[in-house]
């Protein structure tokens, strides 16, 4: 009996310290600056343990029942603490208030536990024995927790599952106490029912915590998710209602409200200058929006669209909502969709095109960075004629000006002549494009915009294109580098530049 209760002291002190460590780790993950997080959390936690100890003196009747209730509460709150913190991070205005309240609540409850336990034991041990034994077990438990946490729990179970696991331990202590004192506890059966329900709930949480974490991920979109699918290549998420947004791997690809600006600026300055263009190639652009703009030109006979992901092109050729937006472009007899890796496809391509549209996601990682290298543009060069044009979406010359001009330099390094331009797309900001062409040796006159635009454009016109060509001083580069497979300069620049903005906002 005495031993049983001493082991209880051991278990609850282990659990208590684990919750503290979990809160500290989650806070360092989410807020950074681990020194601050850990020291404030330890401080708050210890202080509230003191508060708990103080409050324990107001418990006068039913000490054992209160002890059990406290255990159950600790199990519930502590057990789900990691999940609560991860989940609420996206929703709560001031995360720190939630964090410290949670730590405070757990602290108070743990603070009540040990004094209550000592009072339960006082009839069975002499005072000096009581104090010595309870604290011995308490501190040994703390040592165990502090070793097990970094060595076993974090690497093998992860934070969410660890916290559920220790919640279960707390509830088991409650159940054990109920059993030991089953003769003298009021409401025994209802307490038991609550305890078993909690065990089941926490076990389910433990078993399905992976799913919970995934759910927490999807909450990071601000709007209602109307479609989401993980293809083998990427995660496709569409949010919104009447107006919607497409995200690939969490990055915004377009907003139906202003995508026309992005796609008109991508296509018309180039294609409006090619009255003879018959064959067009689109690399990327599986949403069919670029194809929609190109289909406005009657002289274009065929569009070849190479996009890796069939999940995306199927979505935009079959779902009513999206067909309305891209005007069913992907089902046009003039459009041929090929689901292959653009680079691999280009290497085996024997055809030539009058216009090539390169519309890949931004070079935010090393895989995508390869699609902006000199090696890639050399492959593009193989599929164009001297008077063909290439147009490339190339990130924001305002937010990432060195990245933008790095793409320009890379194109020029393989012998393309270039005209950089930019357009304002509210959802994205000021966005950059580059027209590139091979040109012959005699092509000294440079490129002239033709301005043969189809009717009904909302954004591109002769006047707006003129304004797109002007780059003010804050969009000029400070370094010019060529992006190669073996240096990936662009990704390094891009990371540095967008990080800067992520920090300022």
């Amino acid at each position: 009996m005495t031993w049983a209760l001493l082991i209880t002291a051991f278990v609850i002190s282990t659990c208590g310290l684990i919750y503290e460590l979990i809160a500290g780790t989650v806070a360092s993950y989410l807020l950074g600056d681990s020194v601050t997080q850990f020291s404030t959390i330890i401080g708050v936690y210890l202080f509230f343990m003191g508060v708990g100890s103080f409050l324990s003196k107001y418990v006068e009747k039913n000490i054992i029942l209160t002890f059990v209730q406290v255990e159950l509460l600790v199990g519930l709150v502590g057990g789900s603490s990691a999940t609560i913190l991860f989940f609420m991070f996206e929703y709560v205005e001031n995360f720190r208030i939630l964090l410290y309240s949670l730590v405070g609540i757990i602290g108070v409850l743990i603070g009540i536990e040990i004094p209550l336990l000592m009072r339960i034991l006082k009839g069975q041990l002499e005072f000096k024995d009581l104090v010595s034994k309870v604290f011995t077990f308490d501190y040994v438990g703390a040592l165990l927790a502090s070793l097990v946490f970094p060595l076993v729990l974090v690497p093998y179970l992860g934070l969410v599952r660890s916290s559920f696991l220790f919640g279960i331990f707390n509830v088991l202590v409650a159940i054990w106490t109920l059993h030991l004192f089953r003769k003298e506890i009021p409401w025994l059966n209802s307490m038991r029912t609550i305890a078993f329900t909690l065990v089941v709930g926490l076990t389910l949480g433990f078993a399905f915590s992976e799913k919970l974490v995934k759910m927490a991920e999807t909450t990071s979109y601000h709007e209602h998710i109307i479609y989401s699918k993980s293809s083998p290549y990427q995660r496709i998420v569409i949010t919104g209602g009447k107006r919607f947004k497409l995200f690939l791997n969490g990055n915004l690809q377009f907003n139906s409200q202003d995508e026309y600006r992005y796609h008109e600026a991508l296509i018309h300055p180039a294609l409006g200058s090619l009255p003879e263009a018959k064959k067009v190639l689109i690399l990327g652009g599986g949403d069919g929006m670029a194809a929609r703009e190109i289909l406005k030109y009657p002289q274009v006979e065929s569009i070849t669209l190479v996009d890796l992901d069939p999940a995306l092109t199927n979505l935009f050729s079959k779902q009513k909502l999206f067909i309305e937006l891209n005007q069913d472009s992907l089902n046009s007899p003039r459009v041929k969709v090929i689901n292959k890796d653009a680079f691999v496809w280009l290497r085996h391509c024997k055809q030539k095109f009058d216009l090539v549209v390169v519309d890949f996601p931004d070079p935010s990682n090393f895989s995508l960075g390869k699609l902006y290298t000199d090696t890639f543009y050399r492959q593009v060069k193989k599929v164009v004629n001297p008077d063909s044009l290439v147009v490339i979406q190339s990130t924001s010359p305002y937010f990432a000006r060195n990245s933008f001009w790095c793409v320009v330099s890379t194109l020029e390094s393989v012998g393309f002549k270039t005209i950089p331009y930019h357009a304002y797309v509210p959802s994205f900001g000021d966005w950059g494009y580059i027209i590139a062409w091979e040109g012959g040796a005699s092509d000294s006159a440079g490129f002239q915009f033709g301005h043969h635009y189809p009717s009904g454009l909302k954004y591109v016109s002769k006047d707006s294109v003129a304004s797109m060509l002007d780059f003010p001083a804050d969009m000029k580069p400070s370094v010019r580098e060529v992006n190669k497979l073996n240096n990936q300069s662009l990704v390094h620049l891009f990371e540095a530049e967008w990080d800067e903005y992520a920090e300022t906002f």
Partner: protein
Amino acid sequence: MPKPSDSDDTRIKRSTFLKGLIGLAIAGGTGKFLYDRYNTLAHVPVRLLGPSMDFGHMVRDGSLKLDPNAPVSKKVKVLIIGGGIAGLSAGWWLKKEGIEDFMLLELEGKTGGNSASGENRVSAYPRGAHYIPLANAESTYVRMLFQELGIIETVDATGIATYNDLYLCHDPEERLFKDGSFQEGLVPNRGLRPEEKAEIERFFKVIVDYRNRRGSDGKPAFAIPLDLSSRDEEFLALDKMSMEQWLKQNNFSARPLLWYVDYCTRDDYGAKPADVSAWAGIHYFAGRRGRAANAEQNAVVTWPQGNGFVVQKLTEKLASHITTDACVFHIESKADAVRTAYIDRKSRKTFLIEADHLIFACPRFILPRVLKQDASKKSIDLDYVKEVVYPPWMVANITLRSLPPARGIARAWDNVCYLSDSLGYVVATHQNISTRLSSPTVITYYYPLADRRPDNGRMALYRADPEDWKESIVEDLMRMHPTIDRYIESIELWPWGHGMVSPGLGYIWGDTRQKLLQDLDRIVFAHSDMSGISNFEESQYRGVEAAIKVKAQLS
């Protein structure tokens, strides 16, 4: 407070007993459910492959015998035994010289030797050698082959090569997991004390100095191939001490630096600095002077299947000359010809080949097992072969659903964990250019059994259960990627009982290697064990040199 007491229910009630039983059953069931759910590793299939040992051991035991009356199946001018880089390079050179009357015998079902590779539905992957550094100016055969295979695209007037940038290792090339996070490059640079930093800088200054030094004979101190190195006593003396002694002598004692050197000798020679000659240890760093117009000096070329790429290209060129699954068990050097017998591993038929010249392009430890000496003559002493050390390795190819996350910089081609016994892993799909962000991949994990004597290592290599290997490999990888066990689809183990040759003290510039360099009547040798350093350049050099020798004897 009344004590709770058990006195009135010492006998367990029937209902309590049943409840207990049900409770136990539920607990057991839940436990099993959770265990299966989280012990994902138990379901991961592991396959043990590796170079064929059955026939190899039959040769060693002498259980294969040639019938003295066996007829000659075929006569050729040159017979090459061994389809690794040395043997293939010998064939490549013979063909270049217009000699078509030759045959190449390979024990395995596929050529490759230490540059073997495999392939599954995800990717091709290496089982051994996996990269080649930019070729030095003096590595003329390498440059010749590189140009022929399009690895070098153009060479300008000053001799600077432009490499095919699809083959140059893409950035990020290397990363090191140290202090809980990945850093760029393999030389430790996180969390160093100033004096450690200074020592690492001093080390590389010494290396750069060696790299640029020339001996009084005008040759570079450290050349590739190493036979073109200076013979100045100042440099050769380094061969008589171990890399560990050299470090101590030069007051290098910073732990991160010692780890790095230890990693490098294990990586290139499968042995610890105490077991590697200082000359070889320094050669690893100071030998590379290759330059390219479109890459930095320390760049390398690599392919999904590693050096298996070059093997495939050479094999295509030599296809009509190659016989695979041919286990040679009998070589007899006569005055006018060399008689070689092999057994076809599939049909189990024996063939006898008579050749004017033999190029023996296998590791030398095989020679005493297959060479049948003429009893009437004074026998040739082959005991020196025992001095050549081939440490054992374990190479594991692990197929992943995708690369697991890790802290620190983004995934690189070569990924190493600080203070691990393994050499980390390389990513087979690193050279792919794709719009997909995460896709299945194969990683190749290298583990030299460098901490024990080679024979003990070989015993450990084969004795351990594949399941144990799986566990220890995954455990090691989990230091870098705590969740990797949930990404693994399958594991292929490829144990190398005799891996690359290792340059022990005095091996490179001592007597043993001199003996390996000598011909045996009509037998010419070609293998990187004649260099003491096992890499592509040395193997190819030995192969080409052997072919040149044979050509001279033919005409």
